[in-house]
C-alpha cells in the first residue's frame, strides 16, 4: 500500500467558513484552518490533495492553500446531498488507490511527537488495510460521532479490528452492540475525523449511496460496517486529540489546544492567567 493522496471534505453548507477560519499554528504563525489541515496531510507524506467544496467556494479556498507543499485540486459538490456524496465526488481523484481522508471541520493536536496523520498513514501501510483513527469518547458525545464496535488486535495496545460501525448511535444501541472490552464504562471508540480508505471501501460506499432505501447521512458508517464483514478493517487509537471547529466554542478550544501545545505556550499561559485574574477582580 502506497498512500500519497488525501481527500478533505469541506462542502457541508453549515461548515463553509470553518476551513477558512484563521488560527495561530504551533509555530506561532497565523494560518487558515485549511492550511493547517493540508500541513497535517503533507507531514504524512501526501503529495496530492483533493478538497471537496461547496459550489462557488473554490476560489476562496484556493487562496487559503497557496503555501501548501502538495498539489491541491478542488472538486465542487454540485448539490448538498451529504457526506458520502462529497467523498464520492473525489473518486476520480483517488482512482484505484488507497488514500488519506480528513474531515474539513477538525484540527488535530498530537500529544507525542509525530503528527496524527503520519502515525495513521504509517500504520495503514504497515497493516496494509483500511484504518480509521478513533478515540475513546464518553457516551454523552455519541450524538456527534460515528462509533465502532471492535475487538482488540492481539498483542497491540492501540489497534482494534472493527466489527460494526454505527453513525451517531444512541447510548442504548451503543451499550448493546458497540461495547469494546478494555474501555472504561460509558466510553466508546468514536471516529477521530481521519481515515485511510481503500478502493474496496469506495466501491462499498457507491453501493450504499445507490440503494433505494439509502440511510442518508449514515452511508459512510454502513459502508464501513459492511466492509468489515468482508475484509480486515482496523481502528487505531492515536496519540492526540481532535477538535471539532463546528461545535460551540470549538474554534476557541482548538486554538487554545494548539497554542498550549506549541512554541508560544508560556506566553499564552501568562495571558490566560492574566484574563482569569482580571475576571476575578471584576467579579469580586
Amino acid at each position: 500500500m502506497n498512500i500519497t493522496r488525501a481527500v478533505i471534505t469541506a462542502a457541508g453548507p453549515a461548515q463553509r467558513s470553518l476551513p477558512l477560519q484563521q488560527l495561530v499554528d504551533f509555530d506561532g504563525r497565523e494560518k487558515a484552518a485549511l492550511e493547517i489541515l493540508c500541513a497535517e496531510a503533507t507531514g504524512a507524506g501526501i503529495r496530492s490533495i483533493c478538497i471537496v467544496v461547496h459550489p462557488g467556494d473554490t476560489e476562496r479556498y484556493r487562496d487559503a492553500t497557496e503555501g501548501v507543499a502538495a498539489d491541491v485540486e478542488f472538486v465542487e459538490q454540485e448539490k448538498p446531498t451529504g457526506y458520502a456524496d462529497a467523498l464520492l465526488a473525489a473518486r476520480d481523484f483517488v482512482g484505484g488507490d488507497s488514500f488519506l481522508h480528513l474531515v474539513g471541520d477538525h484540527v488535530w493536536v498530537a500529544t507525542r511527537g509525530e503528527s496524527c496523520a503520519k502515525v495513521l498513514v504509517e500504520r495503514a501501510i504497515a497493516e496494509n488495510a483500511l484504518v480509521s483513527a478513533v478515540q475513546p469518547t464518553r457516551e454523552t458525545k455519541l450524538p456527534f460521532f460515528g462509533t465502532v464496535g471492535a475487538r482488540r488486535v492481539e498483542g497491540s495496545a492501540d489497534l482494534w479490528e472493527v466489527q460494526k460501525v454505527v453513525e451517531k448511535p444512541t447510548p442504548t444501541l451503543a451499550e448493546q452492540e458497540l461495547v469494546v472490552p478494555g474501555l472504561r464504562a460509558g466510553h466508546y471508540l468514536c471516529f477521530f475525523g481521519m481515515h485511510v480508505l481503500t478502493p474496496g471501501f469506495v466501491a462499498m460506499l457507491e453501493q450504499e449511496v445507490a440503494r433505494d432505501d439509502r440511510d442518508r447521512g449514515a452511508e459512510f458508517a454502513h459502508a464501513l460496517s459492511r466492509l468489515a464483514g468482508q475484509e480486515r478493517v482496523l481502528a487505531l487509537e492515536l496519540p492526540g486529540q481532535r477538535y471539532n471547529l463546528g461545535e460551540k466554542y470549538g474554534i476557541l478550544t482548538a486554538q487554545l489546544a494548539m497554542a498550549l501545545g506549541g512554541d508560544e505556550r508560556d506566553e499564552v499561559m501568562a495571558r490566560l492567567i492574566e484574563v482569569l485574574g482580571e475576571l476575578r477582580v471584576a467579579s469580586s
Partner: protein
Amino acid sequence: MSDRFVEIIEATDPALRDRSLESLCEGLSADELLAGCAALDAYRRRCDNLYQRVRALFFLYAIHRFHLPALGALRERGEIPYEGHERLLGRRFGEAIETFLSVQERDGASVAVSSALAAAYHQLAFQTLADQVRRSVRSVRGNQWMFRVGHPADHPLRIRPELVDDTRPTLRERTPVRMDLSHSCWSDIFFLGMDLPEAARVVNASVDLGVHGRDAQPEPPIEARLRVIDEPVLRLRSIDLEAEADLCELGEVFDFAKDYLGLLKAAVIAAGVVPPGVEGSGQSLAELLERLCGPGRGLEIESRVRDIPKGSRLAVSTNLLASLIAVMMRATGQAASLTGPLRESERRIVAARAILGEWIGGSGGGWQDSGGVWPGIKLIHGRIAGDDDPEYGVSRGRLLPDHEILDVPPTLRTSIEQSLILVHGGMAQDVGPILEMVTERYLLRSEREWAARQHAVSELDRLLDVLRGGSLGDLSELTANNFAGPIQDVIPWASNLFTERVIERVRARFGEDYLGFAMLGGMSGGGMGFFFEPNVRSEARVVLREIMLETKRELERGLPFAMDPVVYDFAVNENGTTCEFVEGPIASAVSSRDASPETNGRGSEAELHTRLDELGFDRAEHERIREGLVSGRLGLAQNRLPQDSELADVEASDFVDVTAGSDDEATRAGEQLLSDGTVAVVTLAAGAASRWTQGAGVVKSLHPFHRFAGAHRNFLELHIAKSRRRARLSGAVIPHVFTTSHLTHEPIERFVGGLPADPAVPVHLSLGRSVGLRTVPTERDLRFLWEESAQQVLDERAQKVRESLQAALIGWAREAGEASDYTDNLPSQCLHPVGHWYEVPNLLRNGTLRALLEEQPSLRYLLLHNIDTTGADVDPGLLGLHARSGRCLSFEVVARHVEDVGGGLARVNGRPRLVEGLAMPREEDEAKLSFFSSMTTWIDIDRLLGVFGLDRAALATPGAVDAAVAKFAERMPTYVTIRDVKKRWGHGQEDVFPVTQFERLWGDMSTLDDVSCGYFAVPRFRGQQLKEAAQLDGWSRDGSAEFVAGLCAWADE
C-alpha cells in the same frame, strides 16, 4: 447431621438438591433442628452464591415458623426485644436477626423468639431476591447508561428531526395486551426464571380487546401518543384517569404518587427521556428538554387504555408502560423506525425498560408481562445465563427471557378466537402475597408443590404440541386441568368460591358445549377465560355475564369486588406494538370527570344523612369529638396512657396457664354447665374488615376464606359449626349471636336466612345501635402516624412512592378540611362502627339478651370472641375455670409472637389489665409484654348486668337499660384511630384514603376497678386471629387449620 441442610443446598445432583425441607426435618428433635439452624445461619453468612444463600434463608424461616413450633418441645413465651422489632420495621433484617439470636442464646429457644427469627429470615430472603432483580434490571445492556447521566448537559439523546418539523406531527403507538394461556404455575416470577430457567416457560398471546356490547370490534387496547410542543415542559396526560399535568421541575418527574400520572412518569424515566441518573441532581428540566428537543421545546405524552378495567390479569399496566416507552424510544432514535413494528432487539430493550419502569414506579410484574409488545402467540422461556450476560456467575438464568413466535395453524387460531370468551369477573385482589407464597414454596421444594411444578412443565410440552396441530378440545382440556390440578396444588388460594361457583353454573347450563376454563394471571376472579363450542359462543357471552353478575350479587358482601363483571371480544394481534403518524393535534384536554355514581365513587349527601338518621347517629357526640380533634385534646398522641405510667409484664399469679389444658375438675364442671344449657356464644361481626381487604368495605364474616370438609366456608359458617359440635357433644342448645352493624347486618341476615335451621344452635343477630361518621384526619395525626410512630419501611423505591403519597394525602387533608366530615365516598364507606365495646351493651339495649334469656332461662355465661378468632369455641375446661373463678369476666390471652402488635396483658401501676396498643405510653412498652390479648372473653351474665346497675328483670325496661349504658359509657376511654378506606371510581380504579374515626374498646373493661377480671393463657391455635388475608397461607400450613377443622361439625356432614 447439622450440615445435612447445607449439603442439600449445595448438591449438584437434582435428586438431592430438590429434596423437600419437610423430608429433611422429619424425625429431628428440637436440638437437632436448632443445630441445623446454626449451621444454616453460618452458611448463609459465608455463601457467595445468591440463590444458595436465599434458599438457606428460606430453610431458616420455615424451620422457625413451622417445624420447631410443631414439635411442641419449646416453651411458648419469650422476650422479643423492641430493638429487634424496630430493626425489622427499618428493614435492617440482618441486625434484627443478630438481636433475636442473642436472646435465643441467652434465654434458650422459645416459640416466641422463633416467630421473630422466622419473620426476619423471611424478609431478608425477599429483600435479597429483590435486590438481585434490581441489580439485574440496571445492568441490562441498553439500560446502564441511564444511571450514569447525572446532568442535562450530558444527555446523549436527541429528538428525531421528523418530529420537530413545522407540522409538529404526533406519533401514536398502539399495543395489544397479553393473554397467558398456559400459566405454568407462576414460573414467570423473576426469581424462578433466574433460578430454574428450564422450567420458566409460558405460552402468551398478544390480543386486541373490546368490551362486548360497547365496542364495535377488538382493537389494540393500549395507545400512547407523543409530540413535540413549543413550551419547555413535560406535559403528561392519562385519558382514562382523567389526569393531566405540566411538569416544569425535575423533582416532579420523580414524584410518583402526587397524582395519577405515576405510570407515565416511570415510563419517561425508563425510556431515558429523563434518565434515572438525574434524580436529585437539582438541575433544570427545561435545560434537559432543550438538550433533547431544542430551545423552548418540550414533550406532550398521553396514555389511554380504552377503559379496560384494572385487575384484568392481561398485564394492561405493564403493556401500557411498554407502549409509552416504545413511543419515546422511537422519538429519541433508540428504535430505528418511527413507524411500524419494532425489531426484535428493540422489543427486548422495551421489555427490559418496562421492568425498570415498574421498579422505578414501585410496582411489580412478571417477566412475560410485556408480551403484548411481540406479535401473535409465542412461547416465552427462560435462558441460562451465558458468559457475556450480566447475570453470569450470579444466577443460573438471565433476567430477560427469550420470545419464540409459534406457528399456530390458522384453523386452530380461528377456533380459539371463536371459542374462548375472555372476561373480567370483577374481583380486585392483590396478587403480591400469592407471588411470595409461590417463591417460598419453590425454594423449600415442598413436596406437593414441587410435584405440581414438574407436572406443569410436562403439561406445557403438551400444550405446545396442541398448538402445533392439536384440537380446540385438547387445548381447553389442558388449561382446565392446569387450573384444577397444578395451579391449585401449588397455591390453593388461586381459586375462590366466586370462580368455582361460576364454573359450576356454566357447566350446568351448557353441559358439553362448555369446554373448559383458563386462569389468565396470578389468581382467578378477575381476568379469566372460558372455552365453549363455537356454535354456542354468542349465547354463552350473554349467559356467562348473567351468571357472573348473579354470582357476584350473592358473594359481593363477602368477597372484594371492584366492579361488575365484563365480557370482552378479543382477537389475536399479529403485529405486536406498532406506531404511526396521526393527523392533527393530540387529544383534547381532559374532560371533567363523569359525575354519575358508578364512576365517581361517591353517593349523594342526602342519602348519607338519611342513613345517619336511620342509624341513630349521635351528632352531639360527633361534634364534641370534632372539637376535641381540632383543639388537639383528642388525637393519636392523646390515646396514650400518661407517660409516667409504670407498665410491666404480668407475674405468674396474674393469670391461669391453660396452654396444656384445664384441670379435670374444671372440665367436668364445664361439661355439666354446657349440658345444663348455661352458655351462649357471641361473635363480633359488626366490623368492616379494613385490614382484611385494605378498606374495601366487605363483610368479613361472609368471606369464604378456607375450604373445610371439601367446601369453601366463611367465618360465620365456621363459628356456627364449632357451636354445633359442642351442642352435639353436650346434648344442649347453644344459642349463637352475631353482633352486626349498619355495614354488616343486612347481608348477614340474608345469609343466615339461607342456612338450614339447626335447633341445637339457634342463630340470633344483634344489630348495633351506634354509628359514627368518619372525618378527614388532621395533619397532626397523619404526621404522628407516619413520622412519629414506628412504621414498616418499604423497599427503597416503594418507600419513595409511599412518602410521595403521604405528602399528597396530607395536602388532601388540608384542602378537604381537617376534622371535617368525610362524605366524599359511598355512604357505607363514610360511616364507621364505633368500636366493639358497644356490642355487648347493644345486646342489652336491643333486646337480644332479653330474648335469649326468655328462650333459655338457664343461660348464665356468654363466650364473646372476634370474628377472626378461628379457634375459639365453648371449651368445657375454660368454662369450668371461669365459673369456678366467680369473676365477671375472664379474658383469654396467648403468648405474644412478633406479629402480635396492638396491645396485651400488662401490669399497669401494679395492677393487671389489658392495654390497647394505642394506649401504650411508649411504643417500646409493648415489647415487655409476654401475652397478647385474643379478645375472647367469658362473661358471667348476671355479674355483668350488676356492673351496669341492672338485673335480668330490668332488661324489660328499655329506658333504664339505655340510661345505664349511657352512664357506663362515660367511664370508657375514647380512642382516635386512623383507618384506610377505599374509594372506587372509573373502571375498577381504587384510591385509599386515611380517615379518622373514634372507638371504645372491650378490653378496657379490665381497667375498671368494679369489674372483676381474670386471665387465661390459652394455646395459640385457640387464641390467634386472622387479621390479614396474607396470614392464611401460614395458618393453613402450621396446623392451625387442622386444629380448627377438628372443632367443627358441619351441617352437611
